[in-house]
């Protein structure tokens, strides 16, 4: 018995077998059940398990993309709740990309940003204004709204405009540090929101508090994309490329420069890292992901107004980063997924379930304590518990490990050796700080 258990625990093949069965069972559950939030969540969870499996990276990527791109939508498409799952998945994707963007600023470069949602707003409004008749209020030439095909161009325009705003914010920020920086970014976020809320006079640019409605949905090959399952693929592609970019950035020269600045600004400067450029790139790249997702958000909602971009939203994204593990890419993805799913699906479902119990008379709760209204409470309690008992985040950041023998054997170029030195210094510094 013990041997059997041991073999289960440590045998790689057993792991893979387990994983496959797990995926099969959950997808079958998702496929055959009318609406089963549980099996949908468990299926998403398989990605998490996949992360821990002892497989080659490439194999993991292929399996992961296979599950997310093929199996999950396929299994879900059978049930009535298909679009609602996809809706949640789209939001998970949007927030993952934003959290990864913020992770560059906060996690890698160590610049606390409390107004991150502003870039999201910039992206959303960029598409919103030009994909409706709104633009004709202040641009005398051209025909608006632009057609749905322009969405694909706007993905990059949104990206660029947000990056521009990132630099704009970055310039004054360069002079302030630490918590002063936090309050400046907070102020910046609020300024952007208030300005968007009021820019209906003297020139009507954002339509003020009324928001911009009836935004043209994206179009490809003559098909208008209006359902969440269509957006799901757009978001999936963007998120995968964002992950790819961020992973590469982290190991690149600029990524190492960010971390060096985070650990010790003065030392980094002494080593020849240009502070201004490094910080500005962090802001610009972080913002650009957000801006891109803003475009997707505007196109999906077909409506933007300033209430979507409050300070609470910025805190939310920050919480995702911190919950998952600051500076850790898989952690941030997990954090964004958990917070979004919790917020949009689990708590709502739980509430409905409890509500059903209380209306059917199994037990009754006073109205003030009705679980629908307790979301803040539950959210707050979860934050505290997580921070207290898993304060480095769910998946803490790790520095890449190098094989010492390979290094000495000269298989790695000089460039890489510098990396190691850098990483070692960091881990020393990090150790002291903790």
């Amino acid at each position: 018995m013990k041997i059997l258990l041991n073999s289960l625990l440590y045998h790689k093949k057993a792991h893979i077998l387990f994983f496959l069965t797990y995926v099969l069972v959950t997808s079958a559950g998702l496929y055959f059940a009318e609406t089963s939030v549980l099996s949908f969540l468990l299926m998403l969870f398989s990605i998490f398990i996949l992360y821990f499996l002892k497989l080659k990276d490439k194999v993991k990527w292929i399996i992961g993309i296979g599950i997310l791109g093929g199996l999950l939508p396929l299994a879900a498409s059978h049930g009535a709740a298909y679009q609602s799952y996809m809706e949640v998945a789209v939001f998970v994707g949007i927030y993952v990309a934003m959290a990864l963007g913020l992770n560059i600023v906060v996690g890698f470069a160590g610049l606390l940003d409390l107004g991150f949602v502003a870039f999201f707003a910039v992206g959303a409004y960029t598409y919103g204004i030009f994909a409706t008749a709104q633009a004709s209020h202040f641009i005398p030439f051209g025909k608006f709204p632009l057609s749905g095909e322009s969405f694909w161009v706007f993905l990059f325009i949104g990206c660029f405009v947000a990056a521009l705003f990132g630099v704009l914010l970055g310039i004054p920020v360069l002079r302030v540090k630490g918590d002063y920086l936090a309050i400046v970014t907070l102020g910046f976020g609020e300024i952007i929101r208030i300005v968007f809320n009021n820019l209906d006079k003297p020139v009507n640019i954002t339509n003020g508090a009324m928001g911009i409605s009836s935004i043209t949905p994206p179009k490809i090959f003559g098909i208008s994309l209006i359902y969440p399952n269509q957006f799901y693929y757009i978001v999936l592609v963007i998120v995968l490329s964002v992950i790819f970019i961020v992973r590469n950035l982290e190991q690149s020269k600029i990524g190492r420069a960010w971390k060096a600045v985070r650990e010790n600004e003065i030392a980094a400067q002494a080593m020849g890292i240009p502070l201004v450029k490094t910080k500005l790139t962090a802001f610009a790249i972080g913002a650009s992901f957000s801006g891109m997702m803003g475009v997707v958000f505007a196109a999906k909602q077909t409506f933007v107004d300033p209430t979507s971009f409050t300070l609470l939203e910025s805190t939310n994204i920050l919480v995702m980063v911190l919950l998952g593990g600051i500076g850790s890419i898989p952690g941030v993805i997990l954090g964004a997924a958990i917070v979004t799913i919790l917020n949009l699906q689990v708590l709502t479902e739980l509430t409905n379930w409890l509500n059903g119990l209380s209306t059917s008379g199994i037990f009754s709760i006073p109205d003030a304590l009705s679980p629908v209204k307790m979301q803040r409470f539950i959210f707050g309690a979860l934050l505290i518990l997580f921070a207290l008992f898993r304060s480095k985040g769910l998946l803490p950041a790790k520095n890449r490990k190098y094989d010492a023998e390979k290094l000495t054997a000269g298989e790695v170029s000089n460039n890489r050796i510098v990396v190691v030195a850098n990483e070692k210094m960091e881990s020393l510094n990090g150790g002291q700080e903790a």
Partner: protein
Amino acid sequence: MLAQVLQTLPQVLIDGLSLGAVYAVIAIGYTMVYGILELINFAHGEIFMTGAFIGTAILLTFTGFGLLSFMPAILVLVIVLLVTSILTGLLGMGIERIAYRPLRNAPKLITLITAIGVSFLLQDIVRFITELKQGNYIVTAPEIFSGQMKVKVSSILPGIHDASFKITFLIVIAVAFFMMFGLNLFVNRTKYGMAIRAVAQDRETAALMSINVNKVISITFFVGSALGGATGVLFTMQYGTIDPYIGFILGIKAFTAAVLGGIGNIRGAMAGGMIIGMLEMFAAANLSGLTGGIFGAEYKDVFAFIILIVVLIFKPEGLFGKAIVEKV
């Protein structure tokens, strides 16, 4: 245009002063905690809100027993202020003990999460207790001071409008200044104050000098939260109506004030609060007049934040903060 600004100036200053006093006392709470722990205690705004609710609850109980009619208003005020500040002080200590102390060695950002969590929790707890009792969470407190006063500015400076204020304005200002001076004495003249300053300077050395660091941090939280709670009471008296979400906006403004004055610096926080309050009031009253209607009062927060950013760019450590020399 300038004449118009001048005409309303006395009134704007009075209104700005009462709002600024509220900001200033809350800002002190932020700055004290920051000074000692380098932690942005985001829950401080919620402690202020809880104080406002506790104060209102006491006032309502008094009204329920019919005590308000024969007790002198000043006595009622003193009782409410004392009870509220002790309760919120204890609340602050409790929060520190449960949510912050175990994380003292964790990265600062993690403590930020707990702070956000605590503020969500407090908002909701206050909300459901109030709702359970009242059926509605927007509460209006009974007035204990009523009456108006007029300042005849026009008799001295003709052409300038008279200003008026409620009696509560005097009380808010008096109590706020009393608290600030009291705190100043406490921090600068007492043994505990010295201990607080020592711990803020260097926690480890202070511990070596046989200062009980945990105790000192607890006291700091107690004092900061007690002030915050008492401000809640003042706020209720001045504005009458409260809801569980007031802490958020006010907290942010007060935090801005603390940063403006130089975070960690108590006098800076007072000055910062006053400045932000006055600026806001001035902007709300005059922005549309000064810009010919292009920007209205709705831009007052933008105005306040821009001034903050400008100040920080030219004096990154805040108006009264000391520039930190970084050791290599």
